[in-house]
């Protein structure tokens, strides 16, 4: 059995956990982050990626709105390579209460959000695909944020400052000494047991936080509320389009990379279903028909995939609906709440308030350890966002390599581009043509970004996320995994199998039209032409 001694253990590799690892490392503390799956594989990788202006909460939840606005400004500075400054619109449809528009403007003013009323003509200029029948419009400083890049960049920084990141390793029990925690016991993918010892444990396990607390015999009921989202294969809007009414189903369309995303539904689910991630046909219907009301073009556009996430909201008594619970940050010192010293739970909040959550958590952890260092995460840029070079200048430095290839690597990795690209032809050949992922980027991700399988690789690079959903690049990626990742060749074929199964989960709910065509093709290639499920060693472990 392996044993590691450290100062702080962080359970959960979502944005919150990653941000905490970075914060603590910057304050000179040693920490070990343990993630049962891959980084950003929980709720962090299953949301809209909206860099809220806070306007969505401005009417009902001033505190959240205010927090959003503040973090919005900070993240634009420290994480610019993960952010797109799209701007946002709130539009009122003929069927909506026209009074909400005023209410929202006032709320925004109160929360310090620079919302501005604009004419309908102006709104249509900003967003030509918008429903021309809208009654009123306002702009807000919404943006988009890539959760995978953000989390990975926080992890990378923490690691460069000495933190240990263990992915595909699950915490299975919390060790105690009297009324204090002393460490955790965890299990790796291969079944090896590792014990990590520390006086402080941070539960940043999101919606799984209830389970983690249960390991310490503490009851912390979570309120799981599932939200489904639909990705369409075309960027039909350049600006985030919100519906101007109290938050409800299907009221937002967020542009991102080359696609747009319609969000979201909200459905209460029992706690034992949080890992199911099933999307019902009626949720798809709602998203399509409501999305169409905001941008009529939705109906002519191919649905690429659908996915869902579960909101990590801590249940407060008497709440009937997931959406009504405050998205406020919940920081619990279990010494005060339950008499167990050393355990901290951080939950609630939002992706884009991850830094603030990490700061609050790290402050508490430092207090417990008697460390008097201040948080610097709001000042020091993340790896990739170090200095602001324009994409144009960067492209010039790599002359000889197609601009578009340099551009998309820069887009994903910011200044770390320098650690990825070389002038070698093999380095910049394209492996995924849809998303322009090069062999060099794959090598870098496998070697430097804790990538253990093809699904992880997709989260770091966008391989297989484009219109073809991994038709050809999945095979190439598997081949390279053997080359750079040290996987056996048989193992790389298994990774290929698992990757395609994972992709299928998102395609399945929207299997019609071009999506069905594409899937028939992918099936022919991998089952017809390659005989993937006929390979000899592939079976046993799948049940």
């Amino acid at each position: 059995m392996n044993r590691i001694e450290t100062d702080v253990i962080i359970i959960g590799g979502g944005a919150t956990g990653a941000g905490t690892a970075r914060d603590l490392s910057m304050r000179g503390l040693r920490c070990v982050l343990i993630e049962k799956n891959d980084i950003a594989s929980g709720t962090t990788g299953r949301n809209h990626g909206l860099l809220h202006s806070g306007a969505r909460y401005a009417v009902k939840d001033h505190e959240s709105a205010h927090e959003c606005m503040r973090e919005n400004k900070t993240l634009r500075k420290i994480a610019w390579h993960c952010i797109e400054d799209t701007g946002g619109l709130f539009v009122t449809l003929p069927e909506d209460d026209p009074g909400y528009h005023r209410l929202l403007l006032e709320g925004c003013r109160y929360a310090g959000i620079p919302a501005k009323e604009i004419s309908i003509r102006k709104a249509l200029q900003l967003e030509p695909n918008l429903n021309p029948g809208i009654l009123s419009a306002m702009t807000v400083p919404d943006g988009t944020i890539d959760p995978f890049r953000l989390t990975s960049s926080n992890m990378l920084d923490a690691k460069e400052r000495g933190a240990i990141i263990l992915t595909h390793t699950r915490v299975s029990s919390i060790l105690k000494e009297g009324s204090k925690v002393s460490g955790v016991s965890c299990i790796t993918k291969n079944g090896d047991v590792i014990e990590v010892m520390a006086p402080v444990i941070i539960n940043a396990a999101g919606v799984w936080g209830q389970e983690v607390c249960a390991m310490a015999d503490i009851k912390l009921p979570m309120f799981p509320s599932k939200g489904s989202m639909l990705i369409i294969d075309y960027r039909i809007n350049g600006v985030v389009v919100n519906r101007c009414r109290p938050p409800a189903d299907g009221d937002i369309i967020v542009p991102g990379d080359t696609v747009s995303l319609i969000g979201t539904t909200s459905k209460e689910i029992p706690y034992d279903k949080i890992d199911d991630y099933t999307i019902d046909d009626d949720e798809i219907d709602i998203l399509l028909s409501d999305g169409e009301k905001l941008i009529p073009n939705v109906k002519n556009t191919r649905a690429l995939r659908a996915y869902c996430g579960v909101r990590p909201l801590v249940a407060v008594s008497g709440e009937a609906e997931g959406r009504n619970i405050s998205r406020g940050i919940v920081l619990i010192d279990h010494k005060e709440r339950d008499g167990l010293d050393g355990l901290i739970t951080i939950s609630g909040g939002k992706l884009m308030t991850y830094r603030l959550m990490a700061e609050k958590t790290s402050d508490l952890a430092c207090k417990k350890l008697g460390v008097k260092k201040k948080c610097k995460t709001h000042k020091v840029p993340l790896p990739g966002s170090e200095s602001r070079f324009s994409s144009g200048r960067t492209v010039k430095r790599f002359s000889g390599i197609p601009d578009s290839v340099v551009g998309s690597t820069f887009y994903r990795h910011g200044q770390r581009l320098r650690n990825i690209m070389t002038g070698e032809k093999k380095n910049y050949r394209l492996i995924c043509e849809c998303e322009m992922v090069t062999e060099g980027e794959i090598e870098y991700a496998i070697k430097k970004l804790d990538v253990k399988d093809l699904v992880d690789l997709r989260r770091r690079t966008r391989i297989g996320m484009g219109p073809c959903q991994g038709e050809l690049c999945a095979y190439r990626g598997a081949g390279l995994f053997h080359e750079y990742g040290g996987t056996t060749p048989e193992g790389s074929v298994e990774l290929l199998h698992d990757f395609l199964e994972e992709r299928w989960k998102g395609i399945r709910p929207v299997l019609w039209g071009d999506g069905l065509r594409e899937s028939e093709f992918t099936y022919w290639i991998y089952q017809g032409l390659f005989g993937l499920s006929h390979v000899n060693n592939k079976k046993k472990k799948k049940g």
Partner: protein
Amino acid sequence: MIYDCVIIGGGLAGLTCGIRCAEEGLRTVIISGGMNSLHFSSGSIDLAGFTENGSVVKKPFEYIKGTAAKKKEHPYTRVGIPTIRKSLDFFKEKIFFEGITLNHNSDYNHFHVTAIGAVKPTYLSQESVFSSRGKDIIKSGAKIAILNFKGFRDYYPEQTAANLKQHPLFKNSELILGDISLPYYLHTEKNLHEFRSTDIARIFETERYLPRIADEIKRAAGDADAVSLPAFIGINNYREIRGKLEAMTGKFIYEIPTLPPSILGLRIDHAVKNSFFKHGGEYIAGKKIESSVITKGIVESIITGSRGTSSEIKAKYYVLASGSFFSGGLQSGVSSISEPVFDLKVKGDSKRSKWYSWNFFDKKSHPFLSYGVETDSSLNPSTQDGKTVKNLFCAGSVLAGYNPVKEGCGGGVAISTGYKCAERIIREIKK
């Protein structure tokens, strides 16, 4: 002009039908909108590879005879064993004249090796995939070199070797890996690492390069008796190229199909098209049939239209060989399956959640793969109101009632139903 026969779709089914009709002197035209499935296929013709529960079929004709009795709507039932046999012989003979030899293992299936090292049953293959010599070499436990073109991103021979080694057929063989490279390419402006199989095939087709390629093969393969390459040794004069390479290297050369475009499939595509031309057929490429006029169960005309200019095509008989969803022969909406040209009656569930299986590689495969146009025993379809369309026949993967991947029968169904449609039309016209 009124044709005797218009065929919609120039894939394996449409072309087989076309060659047979043209050979009989019928005025035949094929209209095809886009690339057919051969561009992506293994280039082997599967007849019946797997049983219902997924085990390998040894003798396909025997198997078809057994299941045919049970499944009335299976296309093989409609065609019947004698015609299936006749159609395959016909097909083999026709493309032999176009430079492609298709071998079979008497009445048994043989195996072909896939890129990831799976071993799959099939019935007809090119000599570089199946021949009695190749069979002997494998049986004798010879040393096999699994080679790749250095830097080719569409093939990873380590996977082939690793999985193949675990297969009983290869347990006595010694498998080694190697790369061949051709330095003079490096002069090209293109990123050689982004070459597709077709780019490399072109190089193999260049006569003066062959000695260097042969040297490279010899170097990389050492004392191996046989060499496998990803399929890219030429498209048009492949028989000759392969012969020369074998003579120069003294080694048996095997080909493994990899990511599209499939060179093995392209060879067949070129061969069937050439045969069709030689028999006097007319081929209109890049035109899509958009709609049709049917009155009282008779197709009066079909309509092609590109950007506002539509024109009518008339014939005595029509064949729909437009492929499955992939080729556009079938269409799916949010909760409907349809056939777009004639709006024929199709088999398919109206509930979307019934179309697919929960796992991508589910043992049961996916129901949507067996959706398609329903026909009667003469391969005549019917319109939505249930009326048979008498001068329209359907062939190939547009048909319902079989799952080509799960059963391993795509090529066999395409050829035999295409042939059967032709026979029906010939008989009607000669009446």
